[in-house]
């Protein structure tokens, strides 16, 4: 099977590639031994990974240490991928992320969309037969991606950053300010404009932040975090 994967027609010179835009049926023909993963919608793209490609052997150990999860226990049952509500939108299904970690494919994992689209819903964690907190692993991968400057889903990261900036300034999140900041960060027009008229008359969107008394204490948490790292 491994030999066949290596010889798959859309795998040039043993490098990791994504078989872009190859419909499911077609890719199944090309890589007959790759079974579709559970929950995979038809028309999805397939991937071929050469596991011998310059692995970073320390990467899995680092992620294991940071997450406290024994990633080496994963035996690819696929429960996490079958349970994951976002499998349809992931470029690498979560069970494959686990396998890529085991084989040290750091860049592939950190440059994926999947780690940003994961919503921490904990379906994977709940259903992993080896009690791996897979959601926590995904979280740690986002930490790593930030550290190493990989951001496949810029808008998702911008939203998280705007949220935390808002907490840092006010102590509680200020929704209107968060949106303005997000629009500034992404250069996007507010695509949710039509929601304004639904919320405004109901008094749900405050125009002024609620500054708590201890907001300096919150700012200090962020400052110490930046100084200390973690």
């Amino acid at each position: 099977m491994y030999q066949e994967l290596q010889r798959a027609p859309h795998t040039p010179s043993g490098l990791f590639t994504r078989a872009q835009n190859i419909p499911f049926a077609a890719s199944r023909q090309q890589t007959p031994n790759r079974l579709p993963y559970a929950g995979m919608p038809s028309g999805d793209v397939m991937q071929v990974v050469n596991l011998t490609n310059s692995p970073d052997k320390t990467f899995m150990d680092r992620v294991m240490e940071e997450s406290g999860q024994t990633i080496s226990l994963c035996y690819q049952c696929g429960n996490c991928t079958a349970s994951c509500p976002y499998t349809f939108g992931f470029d690498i299904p979560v069970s494959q992320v686990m396998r890529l970690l085991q084989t040290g494919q750091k860049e592939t994992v950190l440059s994926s969309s999947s780690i940003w689209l994961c919503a921490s819903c904990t379906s994977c964690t709940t259903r992993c037969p080896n009690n791996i907190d897979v959601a926590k692993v995904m979280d740690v991968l986002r930490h790593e991606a930030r550290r190493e400057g990989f951001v496949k889903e810029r808008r998702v990261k911008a939203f998280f950053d705007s949220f935390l900036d808002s907490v840092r300034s006010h102590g509680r999140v200020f929704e209107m300010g968060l949106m303005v900041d997000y629009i500034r960060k992404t250069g996007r027009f507010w695509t949710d404009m039509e929601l304004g008229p639904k919320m405004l008359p109901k008094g749900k969107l405050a125009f002024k932040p609620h500054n708590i008394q201890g907001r300096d204490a919150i700012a200090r948490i962020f400052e110490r975090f930046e100084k200390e790292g973690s």
Partner: protein
Amino acid sequence: MTKHTYSYYPGCSGQGTSMEYERSTRAVCEAVGINLDEIPDWSCCGSTPAHTVDHTLSAALSGRNLGLAAKQGHDCVLTPCPSCLTNLKTAGKHMAESETFKEKVNRLLDEPLETIPDTKSVLQVLFEDLGPDALAKKVARPLKGLKVVTYYGCILTRPPGLMDFDSEENPISMDKLMQAAGAEVLQFPLKTECCGASHGVARRDLVMRLSGKLLDMADSLGADAVVTACPLCQMNLDLRQGQVNSANNASYRLPIFYYTQLLGWALGLPDASLGLDKLCVDPRPALQSISANKEVA
């Protein structure tokens, strides 16, 4: 049930987008004798964004609140919001299990955390302290004939090792409370599926698909309404229902209640204390059908 006082952590969305959850939670708790003592000057738990950046930072943002709560002297903190609950619980559990982690968190805080109070959802306390039987006795306006599906969202009971409440695959606490209030609860197979969470802003397409699936299932089961316990779920299903309709070429008109609103209504609490007018999809037709059923009966 004896009167019990808890520390109360409302969460940021309760001050804005989920003000009706906040209002109805307080009203219901008061009506059934649960005292909520708001944590003075509480701050944001950091929600999802904080734990995607760093676990120590996230735990410190929650930890400040746990520290303030510990000073109040009650044995447990309650919150209505599943996302806040996850963060408070994760911080507490992780610090209790690891001295090293606790020290790291304490280095970020003005005041180091000594005792770590327990945290529960308001739902858990309504279900365990009050319970469906006692609730049924207090019902003044049964939700007779109202067909609902209960949607718990992904993290209210999961992962089980952290939440330690109800079932992770087929939770029933809200079902039981709704039945006690007189509603007909339909079997909903997507009780713990994800609604798209906080991706509404950055990747709305994901929410359209996931929330669309939930609305579609609820609608095809013949539900009159969806009952929720999470501000984010409620917002995706209610505020964004119009967007889901346009994106999926559908025409759902399902009111999305917070379970506390329906409990409050059944207890006979005044509309103003339940914030029913804050819902986007008009809940009046559904509630009127209850009154009509009552007259027939």
